[in-house]
């Protein structure tokens, strides 16, 4: 069975602007989340 996109992204951990590592899946583990990919910070 094909993995959902959210399942594919969930294990990826990225730093926030303060350097804290955030696992993407934690954003939507318990509630819905809107995740927006910006083009760049310009």
């Amino acid at each position, binding site marked *: 069975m094909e993995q*959902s*996109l*959210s*399942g*594919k*992204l*969930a294990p*990826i951990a*990225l*730093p*926030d*602007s*303060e*350097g804290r590592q*955030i696992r*993407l*899946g934690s*954003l*939507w*583990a*318990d*509630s*819905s*989340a*809107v*995740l*927006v*990919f*910006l*083009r*760049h*910070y*310009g």
Partner: protein
Amino acid sequence: MFCREHVAQLREHEQAFRDKGAGLAAIGLGDRLYARLFREDTGITFPLLVDERREAYRAAGLRTASLLHLLRRDNATARKRARAAGHHQHRFGKNPFQLGGSFVFGPGNVDRYAYISETFGDNASPATLLMALP
């Protein structure tokens, strides 16, 4: 410029997302310093993540534009719209040709909505994102 326009729209709707029990987070390229300056400039309070290696962008299947996109009529329209709303280009990011996207997930690993940007200035509207929330 388009990033700032998009972030301003998201900020305006942040409370509406919260009212539906949803969190909001954004991912950008560049480094932490760049992200911190962007956060200070735009005043956003939701999480702003940094994907220096484009790991999440690749996993999400997001597209990359080319110079030809600059000639597209829809880009000219979007530039005009963003400028009229008072948004201006500040710094160019690490990869100015990277395109964005918007997703609604969860709770749990459930995909509810996906929007892959076709070109610069092409973003899902906050109203559409709100409608995709359970």
